[in-house]
C-alpha cells in the first residue's frame, strides 16, 4: 500500500440556522479515490470551491470522512489513537503564512513541532538546523517572522513541518498569497525536498505552472476527480480543462492553437524548451 490511500471519500458541510436545524448540505468531497506512492510529487488542481482544500485536510486528520476511509501510512484516520501519528507522518502547510507561524523567532517556530512531539532538546536543535538549511532559510534563524517576505515566511512554515520528520507534506495552496518571486522560491524549495529528501509532496494549487513538474496530477471539480494522469496527459486535454474553468500553461495553449491551425505539434507541450524543439521539428 502507498503512503496515502483514499477510498470512497465523502465529506459534507452542513449549514445550520440559529436553532440548529439543517438548512442545507454542501457535498465538498464526493466519492474520491486516491493512491499516492512514497516519494511521489502529486499535484491536485481545481478552481475555487472544487473541494481540493477539504480533501487536503483529510490527509492530516484535521477533518474526518463522513463516508469512506483515508489511510495514511496504513493508519485509518478515523481511529482516534492514530491522530498524532498521522499528523506527524503527513505534515501540512497552509495558505496564509502569517496564520501558521507560532514562534516569535524563526528558529523557535521551526522548533515548535518537535517540541510538541517531545523530542529531546539537543535533537530539536539538530532538526531545526537541518530543516532551515533544507529550505535555504538558515541565515534568517534569529529573525522575527514579521520582518520576512511572504515567500520566506512560507519557507519557514515548510521548515517547521520538515522538522517533524514527516514522510509526506501536504501543501494547501502555499503560494496563493505570494507574489511571483515568492511563488518561485517556495516551489523551488518544495521540489528540492522531493528530489533530495525524497519526501512525498502533495501540492494543492490553482497555478498551472506549478504542476508541470509533478509525477501525477489530479484535477478536481465539484468534489469529484475529473481528470487524472501525468501532467502531459492532463494538459493535452485542453478543451476539458477549459470546461473545468482551468487555464493551461501559456506554452501548452500556444502549441494547442498551432496544432488546430494545422501545424504538426505534439500534444501536451509543457515547457518552453519542449515547445522550441517541437517548433524546430515541424518547420524543418
Amino acid at each position, binding site marked *: 500500500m502507498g503512503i496515502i490511500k483514499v477510498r470512497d471519500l465523502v465529506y459534507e458541510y452542513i449549514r445550520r440556522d440559529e436553532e440548529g436545524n439543517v438548512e442545507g448540505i454542501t457535498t465538498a468531497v464526493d466519492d474520491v479515490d486516491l493512491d499516492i506512492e512514497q516519494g511521489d510529487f502529486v499535484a491536485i488542481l481545481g478552481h475555487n470551491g472544487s473541494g481540493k482544500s477539504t480533501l487536503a485536510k483529510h490527509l492530516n486528520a484535521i477533518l474526518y470522512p463522513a463516508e469512506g476511509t483515508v489511510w495514511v501510512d496504513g493508519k485509518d484516520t478515523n481511529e482516534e489513537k492514530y491522530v498524532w501519528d498521522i499528523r506527524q507522518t503527513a505534515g501540512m502547510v*497552509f495558505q496564509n503564512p*502569517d496564520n501558521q507561524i*507560532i514562534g516569535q523567532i524563526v528558529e523557535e517556530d521551526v522548533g515548535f513541532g518537535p517540541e*510538541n512531539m*517531545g523530542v529531546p532538546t539537543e535533537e530539536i536543535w539538530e532538526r531545526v538546523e537541518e530543516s532551515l538549511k533544507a529550505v535555504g532559510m538558515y541565515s534568517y534563524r534569529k529573525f*522575527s517572522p514579521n520582518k520576512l517576505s511572504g515567500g520566506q515566511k512560507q519557507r519557514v512554515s515548510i521548515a517547521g513541518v520538515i522538522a517533524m520528520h514527516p514522510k509526506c507534506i501536504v501543501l494547501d495552496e502555499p503560494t496563493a498569497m505570494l507574489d511571483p518571486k515568492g511563488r518561485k522560491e517556495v516551489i523551488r524549495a518544495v521540489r528540492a525536498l522531493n528530489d533530495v529528501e525524497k519526501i512525498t509532496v502533495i501540492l494543492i494549487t490553482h497555478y498551472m505552472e506549478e504542476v508541470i513538474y509533478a509525477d501525477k496530477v489530479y484535477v478536481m471539480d465539484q468534489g469529484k476527480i475529473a481528470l487524472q494522469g501525468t501532467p502531459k496527459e492532463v494538459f493535452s486535454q485542453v478543451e476539458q480543462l477549459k470546461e473545468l474553468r482551468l487555464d493551461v500553461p501559456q506554452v501548452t495553449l500556444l502549441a494547442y492553437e498551432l496544432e488546430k491551425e494545422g501545424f504538426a505539434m505534439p500534444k501536451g507541450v509543457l515547457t518552453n524548451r519542449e515547445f522550441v524543439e517541437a517548433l524546430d521539428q515541424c518547420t524543418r
Partner: protein
Amino acid sequence: MLRDITLGQYYQADSVIHRLDPRVKLGTTIIFIISLFVFHGVGGYVAAAVFLAMVIKLSKVPFHFMIKGMKSIVFLLSITVIFNLFLTPGQPIFRLWKLTVTQEGVRLAVLLSIRLGFLIIGSSVMTLTTTPNQLTDGLEKMLKPLNRLGVPVHEIAMMMSIALRFIPILMEETDKIMKAQLARCADFESGNLIRKAKSLVPLLVPLFISAFRRANDLAMAMEARCYRGGDHRTKMKPLHYERRDYIAYLIVLCYLVAGVVLGKLLPILLGSVVA
C-alpha cells in the same frame, strides 16, 4: 513602519544582565520594588541607588533609555508630588495663598518621587534586557507550582506569547482597514468624543472578524503540528540556573541586608555627626 514595532522595549546588547535567567530578573525586580517600600530612612535609599546604578552599569544599556520610561509617568509623578506637598498636615514652612507647604509634606514628596523613580527605572532595566519571549518562559517556569492548584500555567504563557506574536500583525491590519475606509470617505478625525467613538465601529468590526479568522487558522495550524497542550512537551530552550544566576541571587541578598543595615545605621551615624 509598523512592521518594525517590537513589543516591550528590548535593547539588544551583550551583557551579564542580558544573559541572566529571566526568572532571576523577574524575581529581583519584584524584590527590588518591595524593598523600596519596606526600607525606611535615607540609608535604604542609598543602598537602592547604589544597587540600581551597579545593575545599569552592568547592563550596558544607555542611561537615556531608562529615562525614556520615566517620561510617561512624569504627569502622574508631578500630581502625587503636588498633592503630598500641599496637603500633608504638619509643621508649616511657608504659605502660598491658601495652601501650606509643610515639613512633612516636603519629606513625603521627596520620598515618593524617589520611590516611583527607582521603581520605574528598576522595571525598565528588566524589560530592556529581557525579550518578551524570555519573560513568558520565565513566568511559565516560575508559576509552574500553581499548576497543582489547577491554574493552567502553560496555557496562559502560550496565550501571552501568541498575543505578542500577533500584535504587530493586527497593527498592520488595522492600518490597512483604516486606509481602506478612508479611501471610502470614512472620517476618523472630526466630531466630538462620541462621534469619534462611533466612527471607529467600521474599523473595529472588520478587525475583529479578521482576528477570529486568524485565530481559527492558527488553531488548525497548531493542531496540524501536533500541539496538544503542555504535557509531553519538551523545550527547545529550557531554562537552567547557572553559576551567574546563583551569584546574582547572592548579590540581591547582599543588597537587602545592606539596605536594612544602612537604614538602621545611617541615621545614628548622621545623628552622631550632627551632635
